[in-house]
């Protein structure tokens, strides 16, 4: 069934914009209509430029308009990148030659070519990130403007690396554009759905177990690092998580859970809730095709599938986006997936790192208890 009801995930063009717009010193141009421009602009809260092409440019060619926009941006000192949307992508124009004259990057990432992850990866590849063997520290990747937790993740992983006396090299994709060419030789991740592929991947930071393993490896490979402060904090906080989860289980049954998220966050949520709360993980509805999971899982692309899976598995709590919240009825809900509409979010909450697990467990427990406790 190729048709899709209420599609849940952004297109490749939006993913490409999310990657490029994260870099300072880069001017990103959406080559297409105003409609294609407005969506990534409102979603990413990043400055983007557009060609806003019109019907006559579809008929007579859009190159002049693209050249006009590029020339307006020339002289800012920024590197210019152009992302093609669906219509310009099929016009058959020789856009690469035009852009080569201006030393502009071209990301051919029309919406019909795939989902956000594929556009993100395509854009990152065009940047040709390179390792500089003399660069100190480690890179952080998985920082994607589409992710509502990107800011909290970055803050938290910077904090932990600081505790371990490990310098941060390049952040993919939230850094100066020039630093894409001076990445360190090792990388740690915050969200496996948006890997950079730059340097040697040391490991992820989602969940205490992965975080511990990653920092142990970091301690081995980064000269001058001292991971003991991180390990001490991790150990203390894990004890605290165990204590509050144990207290919850003295009074309540473990929750049954259905998760709708990118593969990386879905696995983290399932692993964490199973480990600390003995939760019954009934289903992972994945926004993208991640690796194999030991939990029941499948790709879920439309809202109809979400409704079906929630009704089928009848969980106590649903984790997902505000799309899922809209069809969760009276079940407990906690948001870990974009979009998270209809709620005010100001503080940079993390999912990664020590504070990420603390915040996640605290939110799930509070949500469950709010649903389970009798009204006073």
């Amino acid at each position, binding site marked *: 069934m190729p048709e*899709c*009801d209420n*599609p849940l995930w*952004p*297109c490749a063009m939006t993913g490409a914009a999310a990657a490029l717009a994260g870099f300072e010193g880069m001017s990103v141009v959406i080559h297409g209509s105003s*409609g294609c421009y407005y969506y990534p602009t409102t979603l990413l809260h990043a400055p983007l430029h557009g060609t806003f092409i019109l019907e006559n440019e579809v008929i007579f060619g859009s190159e002049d308009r693209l050249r006009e926009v590029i020339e307006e941006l020339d002289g800012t000192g920024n590197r210019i990148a152009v992302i093609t949307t669906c219509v310009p992508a099929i016009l058959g124009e020789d856009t690469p030659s035009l852009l080569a004259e201006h030393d502009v990057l071209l990301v051919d990432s029309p919406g019909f070519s795939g989902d956000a992850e594929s556009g993100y990866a395509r854009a990152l590849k065009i940047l040709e990130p390179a390792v500089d063997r003399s660069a100190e520290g480690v890179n952080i990747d998985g920082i994607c403007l589409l992710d509502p937790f990107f800011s909290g993740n970055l803050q938290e992983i910077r904090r932990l690396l600081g505790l371990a006396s490990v310098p941060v090299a390049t952040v993919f994709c939230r850094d100066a554009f020039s630093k894409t060419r001076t990445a360190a030789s090792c990388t740690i991740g915050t969200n496996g759905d948006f890997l950079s592929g730059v340097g040697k991947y040391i490991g992820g930071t989602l969940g205490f177990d992965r975080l511990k393993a990653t920092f142990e490896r970091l301690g081995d490979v980064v000269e001058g690092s001292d991971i003991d402060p991180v390990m001490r904090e991790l150990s203390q906080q894990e004890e605290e998580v165990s204590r509050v989860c144990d207290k919850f289980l003295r009074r309540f049954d473990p929750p049954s859970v259905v998760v709708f998220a990118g593969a990386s966050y879905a696995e983290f949520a399932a692993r964490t809730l199973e480990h600390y709360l003995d939760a019954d993980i009934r289903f992972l509805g994945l926004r993208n095709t991640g690796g194999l999971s030991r939990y029941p899982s499948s790709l879920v692309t439309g809202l109809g599938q979400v409704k079906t899976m929630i009704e089928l598995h009848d969980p106590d709590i649903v984790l997902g986006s*505000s799309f899922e919240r809209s069809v969760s009825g009276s079940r407990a809900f906690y948001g870990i997936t974009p979009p998270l509409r209809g709620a005010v979010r100001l503080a940079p909450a993390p999912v990664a790192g020590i504070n990420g697990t603390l915040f996640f467990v605290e939110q799930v427990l509070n949500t469950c208890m709010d649903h389970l406790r009798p009204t006073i």
Partner: protein
Amino acid sequence: MHTSRSGGCTLTGALSITTHVRDAVSIIHGPKGCAHHNFSLFHATMLDNEQAALPDLVSSALLESDIIFGGEEALARTIRSVCDRDVSTVFVLSTCLAGTIGDDVDAVCGRDWPVPVIPVPTAGFLGGSFQDGVNNALIALTVFSEPSQPGPCVNIIGEKNLEYEVEENYAEIVRLLALLHIPVGIRFVRNISPDDVPALGAARLNILRDPSLVPAGEHLRQRFGTPYIPSFPDGLSATLAFIGSVAAACGIDPGKALRTEQEFQAEILADFADIGDSQGIFCGPVMDPASSRAAREAADALRIRMSGNKDACQLPIHPVVGSSGIRRMLHRWRRAIHA
């Protein structure tokens, strides 16, 4: 041919109408991303307006192979799949991609389907602007109605369903109409059933949300003979003029209604006497002439002077409706002046 680069997407404009028809499905003939963009936008707007219902959008999910060989079969397959569901109506809206590859959407919709399948001229930016999409969808929906004898009601045409204050603006119009003892017929189109649409031709007057809807107002006038007022009122004097215009169109003496509204406006201005005689400059994301005129009139009434100094107190303006809209704007001014 459409010449504004910032006119927005025709598809989104049309969807802002078709998604407010209950038990109907809107098929977006194009790549999945177009449907997702709009689903996300409408989802956010509906949450802002405390509406639990989600828009029912289905994408024909065009892939690269459809772009090469044509997407009509993908559209037919999608319509077939949607018709198998319990739906009253299917709207088909094309995207700029479908328009560029030249799919004959009307021909596919014209096949023999078990429920009404209504094509709405859109095609993204190739179809014009956001507002063109709104007008095209309103006009497409009139297929459900027939001319009939005018009754006592007036219809509200083309409310901005993506507007944050849409219900408050409607409530203000209802309040003004109540001063003239005129009931509202249908809200065309806001949360209606296809069964409501036949009443469209039975109004004695149509009130358009704003002048950009004149093409739809003209279509209704030609089809049903219903006169229209081109806009909701946007300021103090415009509100009084609106009462007068509605009364004239309906053959009612507006005297008492006007006196009541003038007293109400006087009370509003008295409530904000504390910010009178201050200074400021107007600011806001939407500085259209009508909003600026309404703001200027309110400022003059309170003897608030416009400053030439850009560091002066910033008085936010936004598109207001009626005297109540002015009151809400004045609350924002008070907050700014006393900040």
